[in-house]
């Protein structure tokens, strides 16, 4: 019996590790952040009780926030290490990098045109414009919540370097960016990655590091064609992960998705009980 090799390697172990770390830290920050934000409601207090009440929730939120910022710093160092400095800055561009390029602008308009039936489906290379957007949105979000989060981490120390009223601004900016990040992940990211008809019910590429070859030919045809033209396709074909591992990825992934939906739905339901101003 020949082994069925129909998967294309898409993400390296380190890519998957970054994503896994981000999931765990982001979800912990989401739960503790929402518990804190909704503390005046019974639902918020219930969530906070899971972490030892108000103080415990805030302490965990702060520590996990610091770990996330440390991870972000490590990620930047990793990128600096990965850049081909001998060919800089040209090495930043090309089909393998996540840097936005002119082709992504064209990709966006072609994709929009395809959605509304004006043209055929665009032929993406390794990264489509929305995958790059998702990646850089984490940067933008982390910089905003990171800077404001650090300001709020020790407000007394912060006020040694700037007026204390800057904390009023920091808290609101932190709050709105966090709501934007959670709202985007729990609705748009989940739908695009897992609930589109071509990905439904679960896209495990970011967990097992591979994607179905036929799916790759459909979603990233230029990437597959380029690998083939460069003679690298055969090396990039890998067997599917073992079934128990696939089941584990599915269960883990859906636990996170359900947790996100739980937070989203109850946050909306309880929003009317929240005093913002």
């Amino acid at each position, binding site marked *: 019996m020949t082994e069925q090799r129909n998967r294309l390697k898409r993400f390296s172990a380190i890519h998957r590790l970054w994503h896994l770390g981000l999931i765990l830290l982001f979800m912990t920050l989401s739960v503790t952040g929402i518990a804190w934000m909704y503390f005046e409601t019974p639902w918020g207090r219930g969530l906070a009780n899971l972490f030892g009440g108000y103080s415990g929730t805030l302490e965990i939120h702060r520590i996990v926030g610091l770990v996330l910022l440390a991870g972000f710093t490590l990620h930047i160092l990793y990128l600096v290490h990965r850049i081909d400095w001998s060919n800089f800055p040209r090495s930043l561009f090309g089909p393998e990098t996540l840097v936005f390029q002119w082709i992504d602008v064209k990709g966006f308009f072609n994709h929009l045109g395809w959605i509304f039936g004006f043209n055929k489906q665009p032929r993406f290379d390794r990264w489509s414009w929305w995958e790059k957007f998702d990646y850089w949105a984490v940067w933008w979000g982390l910089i905003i919540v990171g800077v404001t989060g650090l300001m709020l981490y020790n407000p007394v120390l912060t006020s040694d370097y700037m*007026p204390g009223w800057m904390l*009023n601004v920091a808290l609101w900016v932190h709050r709105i960016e966090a709501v934007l990040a959670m709202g985007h992940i729990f609705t748009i990211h989940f739908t695009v990655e897992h609930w589109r008809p071509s990905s439904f019910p679960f896209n495990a590429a970011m967990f097992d590091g591979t994607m179905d070859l036929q799916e790759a030919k459909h979603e990233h*045809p230029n990437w597959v064609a380029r690998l083939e033209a460069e003679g690298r396709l055969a090396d990039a074909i890998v067997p599917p992960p073992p079934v128990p591992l696939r089941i584990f990825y599915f269960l883990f992934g859906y636990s996170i998705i359900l947790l996100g939906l739980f937070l989203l739905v109850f946050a909306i339901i309880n929003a009317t009980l929240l*005093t913002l101003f």
Partner: protein
Amino acid sequence: MFIGQKIVCLLGVLLVALPAVGQDMNTPEEMAGTGYFRDQDTLPGAFRFYSQLPGGEGGLWGLGPDRQKISRSSFKMDAHEGVDDFSPELRCQKCHGLQIKDLHGLRMGIACVQCHRNQPVAGIYHYYSSLNPIRRHAYVCAKCHEGATPSFASYMVHEPNPIAPEARTTFPLLYYSIWFMLILAVGVFLFFLPYTAFWWLREFAAKLKGGQDHD
């Protein structure tokens, strides 16, 4: 000649001594940061000390909170003096409902009296008030926030509604920052939610037809 020598000596002594005197003199900002009830802090009449805001009025090119609309009662020993229907039996929320809807009141359950003290409630700019900005950090904030400074005490506990038009003049940086973030967040959702929905429908339609749809 003798008088001339005396004058030269006197000037010499003054020249040597004056910088030392200058070093001992605190600036109003330094005095404001002591947190102690000192003569210069508490003597009525030195108005400029009491109207100053730690961290600088307005601050950051006038984008910070302003203090232009300080009510007269904020300088009274009893802020409720002359309020016709005031009674010590009334709950603060009856007239100050908005002031309890902030992080201190809602999240931490801090009661008004914990910062504003008991009757008679002094105006926050009254020169003996513990909430006067010159000592607020030491007598009120530091009860919970160890090491609180005058700058820290400029945090607006009762902040204005950041999206209300009034905030544009009372706290411009808060107003503009929050509106920028709201426009960003709403813009992202207004764009991506319909985009994702139409995308889903398009894929569903393509799937029903079967086959690929590439150029």
